[in-house]
């Protein structure tokens, strides 16, 4: 699972790659967190359930990442990894592993405001799956 940053005039995007769709969604969540904050010092102390719905795979991805953003900014959690248990074009469930956020150990990099549908893409290639997501920052 890897990701790279995509250029955008004002905001920021990423392209994530993974062998399977559940791993792709976990990788996208990881990319979002790593854009928002330093993640080198996060202890895997607790597991936090994550769930989202949608009317297509694309909207499930946006809503899943919006859930991650809520845990980060609303619940103030620092997350170091993600597991996806179930994924369909209507629903996703999984968990984030991490701990309550301590800004002195996990300083912010960029405040991510939202996950957009702009040029959103989920597709298959020779290596597996990839997605492209743009964030409002």
């Amino acid at each position, binding site marked *: 699972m890897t990701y790279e940053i995509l250029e955008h005039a004002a905001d920021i995007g990423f392209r994530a790659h993974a062998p399977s769709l559940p791993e792709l969604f976990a990788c996208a969540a990881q990319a979002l967190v790593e854009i928002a904050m330093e993640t080198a010092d996060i202890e895997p102390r607790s597991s936090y359930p994550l769930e989202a719905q949608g009317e297509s795979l694309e909207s499930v991805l946006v809503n899943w990442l919006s859930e991650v953003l809520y845990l980060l900014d609303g619940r103030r959690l620092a997350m170091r990894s993600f597991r996806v248990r179930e994924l369909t074009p209507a629903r996703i469930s999984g968990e984030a592993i991490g701990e309550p956020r301590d800004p002195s150990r996990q300083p912010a990099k960029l405040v991510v405001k939202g996950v957009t*549908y702009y040029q959103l893409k989920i597709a298959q290639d020779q290596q597996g799956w990839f997605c492209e997501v743009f964030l409002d920052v």
Partner: protein
Amino acid sequence: MELEAIDRFRYCIPQDAARGMRTEVLVFASPALVEQIRKDKSLDQAVNVAMLPGIVGPSLAMPDIHQGYGFPIGGVAATDWNTGVVSPGGVGFDINCGVRLMRVSLGADEARARMRELLNQVFRDVPCGTGGEGPIDLKLEELEEVLVRGAQWAVAQGFGEAADVEFAEERGALPDADPAKVSARAKERGRRQLGTIGSGNHFLEIQYVEQIHDAEAARAMGIERDQVMVLVHCGSRGLGHQVCTDFLAQMGEAMKKYEITLPDRQLACVPIQSEEGQAYLAAMRAAANFAWANRQAILHFLREAFRRIFGPQLRIDLVYDVCHNIAKREHHRRNGDPADVLVHRKGATRAFPPGHPELPEAYRPIGQPVLIPGSMGTASWVLVGAEGSMRESFGSVCHGAGRLMSRTAAKKGRQAHEVKKQLEEQGILVRSETKDGILEEIPEAYKNVDEVIEVVHSAGLARKVARLRPMGVIKG
């Protein structure tokens, strides 16, 4: 994209340029700015906006237009209040992101002599809050009051002076905000973030007045040459971001219900008069009020910080507060007929002309102050709205210099300490909470703000009043 020149400052994309356009696109720009605008996808986005059901007049692009998501940033679209749509993407995630300008009873030299000490004090007292928390911990009942009363709540709690609200757009609170339409999650995100700046392009700048272009307007605003000013740029923080997220999530189903199809899901919209449209507007107004309370609390912390350095007699007064991400019901005229419209301003500032009844009495003879931040190394501008804005742009102008370079490109090959040093050599001290905050916002990442201002001034949308230069910058 085919762009036809109308005159030196106006370009048009005709209605037949793309299938589905319901109106033309009118671009305010100079030939040099047009070349820069063509480099990203902002004109395609302005064309997509022209497809919104019920759009009245052209899809408008300001000279600072650049690529956003859905709407371009620097875009304005008015939709018919009875038959048109509201698009949360036409407001954006940062509902009521805006700018607040204060004048300080201090000369530039006095401030410059103690700038490092002052900047450090302000950095301590006015939090960026990028870790998700600020100094104010609101109980749910208090937060709900903030959502209804905006800046007026903040002043009533002691975060400011009574006169502050007189000089904010809408007196710092939009009516008809409904906290019940704001989700528990949005409230959770906002509860600890009041009084914080955020990150990205948000900032607090200590500036001085470098040039006065309109003495009468400057006098009405209490602005003198070499006077210290403070400009704050921020919005509704996590609360507003979550409101946008919540409603975008519902829009897919709602668009099917109302049989609306658009080329970009981020443009998602529903009829203004639908249940979903009214719910969004009630929640958006609540988030807008949170943003005004946020900027008001920041003004309070700023006063405390300055007075710690310069003594309790120091005056800091609000010149004006404008929002540049909002949708508001306004009454305009199109071709001589009254137009009852919802004006979406996505990275665009209201610019009402002299005599407009919604202006504070002190500004009615000169027009509404329009505050245009540049980049941290160049300049910011104070303008006033002019008559042309009501004829051509639904009382709107640009909101900034407009981004030219991506964040990744801005960081490439540069070190934060070098950028800081270069700015220091120009007399500008910078402090940032995040490592990349300085690099991503380098002056070269932005268009030339003077050229953007020249367009709106020459096109008759607004008039130049003063040019402000930064001395101390705080970035999130």
